């Protein structure tokens, strides 16, 4: 059976999610900013055309935003996560052989489906996602994942393709032309490190890489290079990765609204970030063996410093209280009022499943304490789930304005909060009586 892969890639995903509930923003420049430091994390095509780069700090581009009337949103991850799940659901219905590669990209293995016209198949999937969920996608179909990825890029650039590029039933001249048009930096797996090295050797297009001798590619890029040449020639070297089931580590970090030397501000941040990370951990039925925090001064200012501390726990935990207390204690080992702290983060890693504590470790654990903590956590999670996040919090978790993310321009959580549902107005009388 010949391998065939499709990559389904959502166009400007975060922007498309915002436009779903704001149809008036179609064809207008829109950007989504990261919720804490206000850098551009997604751009509509119109915003790209206006010359706004990815990662641009909003305050530096204020003038350009005003000039082009760019609509700004703070990231609304609850919305994006929900829409992403819906798309995965539809794709899983088409075939269970799916690899969710990121929040807005999924690979499908089509080799077991009986498809004659791949381009027509792609167009129907694209139409279905647009109609049922309201998100535009691009689809690349190819005998290898690298070519499928390249196909989505081509599909996005050429409007006459209807968002689908098929490398399977593609004349060799057309394929070569497509590879010739693709600069090496757009090839999946060629990063910023490799690109200058390849350029120095005279390689600028994907077609040149495809025509490399495999041995030479291996000399230049290692085994990865040999695989890359093979993939670009339509011979698959990668298969679907099994779905990532559990997180390996959880990190939460925030930039303070203004730099601070106040211990209570840092402690409040630890408490809130720690509570949020621990909630995630409990959701996955995991316990962390190692927890840590890091903090830094502004790296654009002189005297930049950073600190990181890690604690290895005797007993793995997902208790917000324990995690916060341990990290606040660590903060005390290096905190100084002479520093202007700019950013703080909390991380949890080295996970074990919750059940493991009750079986393997039973002899070493004070289980009554553990059970009590567990009941308390379950109660907190229940209340927060019902009333919305942040209704029940730890005393230290003061909701001080200094470090709160600037959510002022975040759109409503349309699909995850009862109080924030989109509103439909009963139409004026003229439209309401049925003709």
């Amino acid at each position, binding site marked *: 059976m010949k391998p065939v892969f499709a990559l389904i890639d959502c166009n400007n995903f975060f922007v498309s999610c915002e436009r779903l509930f704001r149809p008036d923003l179609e064809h207008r420049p829109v950007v989504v900013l990261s919720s804490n430091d206000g850098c551009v994390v997604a751009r509509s095509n119109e915003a790209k055309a206006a010359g706004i780069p990815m990662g641009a700090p909003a305050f530096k581009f204020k003038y350009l935003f005003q000039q082009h009337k760019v609509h700004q949103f703070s990231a609304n991850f609850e919305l994006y996560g929900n829409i992403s799940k819906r798309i995965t659901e539809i794709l899983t219905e088409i075939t269970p052989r799916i690899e969710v590669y990121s929040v807005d990209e999924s690979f499908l293995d089509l080799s077991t489906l009986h498809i004659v016209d791949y381009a027509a198949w792609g167009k129907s999937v694209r139409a279905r996602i647009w109609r*049922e969920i309201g998100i535009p996608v691009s689809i690349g179909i190819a005998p290898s994942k690298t070519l499928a990825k390249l196909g989505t890029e081509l599909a996005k650039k050429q409007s006459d393709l209807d968002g689908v590029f098929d490398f399977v039933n593609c004349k060799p001249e057309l394929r070569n032309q497509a590879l010739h048009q693709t600069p090496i930096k757009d090839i999946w797996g060629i990063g910023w490190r490799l690109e200058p090295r390849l350029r120095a050797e005279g390689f600028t297009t994907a077609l040149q890489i495809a025509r490399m001798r495999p041995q030479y590619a291996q000399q230049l890029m290692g085994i990865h290079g040999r695989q890359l040449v093979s993939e670009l020639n339509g011979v698959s070297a990668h298969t679907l990765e099994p779905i990532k089931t559990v997180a390996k580590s959880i990190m939460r970090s925030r930039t303070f609204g203004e730099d601070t030397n106040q211990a209570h501000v840092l402690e409040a941040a630890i408490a809130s970030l720690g509570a949020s990370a621990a909630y995630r951990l409990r959701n996955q039925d995991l316990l962390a063996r190692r927890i840590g925090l890091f903090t830094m001064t502004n790296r654009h200012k002189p005297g930049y410093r950073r600190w990181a501390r890690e604690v290895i726990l005797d007993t793995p935990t997902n208790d917000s209280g324990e995690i916060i207390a341990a990290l606040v204690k660590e903060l005390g080992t290096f905190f100084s009022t002479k520093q202007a702290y700019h950013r703080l983060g909390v991380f949890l890693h080295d996970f074990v499943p919750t059940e493991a504590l009750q079986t393997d470790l039973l002899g070493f654990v004070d289980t009554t304490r553990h059970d009590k903590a567990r009941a308390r956590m379950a109660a907190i999670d229940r209340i927060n789930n019902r009333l919305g996040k942040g209704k029940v919090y730890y005393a230290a978790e003061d909701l001080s304005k200094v470090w709160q993310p600037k959510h002022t321009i975040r759109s409503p959580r349309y699909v995850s909060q009862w109080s924030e549902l989109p509103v439909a107005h009963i139409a004026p009388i003229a439209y309401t009586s049925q003709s």
Partner: protein
Amino acid sequence: MQAEHHNNGVSVHAGFPNPAADKSLGNLDIHQLLVQRPASTFLFRIAGSHWQELGIFDNDIAVIDRALDAHSNDLVIWWDDITGEFSISYRSTMPVEATFWGVVTSTIHQFRSA
């Protein structure tokens, strides 16, 4: 199934499995009634009081399934470019220039909220 015969001729049946023991058979799931396709189902809050005689009240929740084709007597949600708001009306009276959003499959009216 086993039947035990007692002296007075009454038989007692034993060993028949209790159908209610399988919870998946016994429970009606309200979600199943209202949501056929979770991926394409969205909820809206209704605003406006002049449709009460039709049984649609201010603050009701509308269930929308984007996967459905709209027929002329369907209730639909559309984006009104003039007011900059979502509107609800019959498909047949949706203005031609409006952007269609989805078909309303039910509305939920709560007399007491949970």
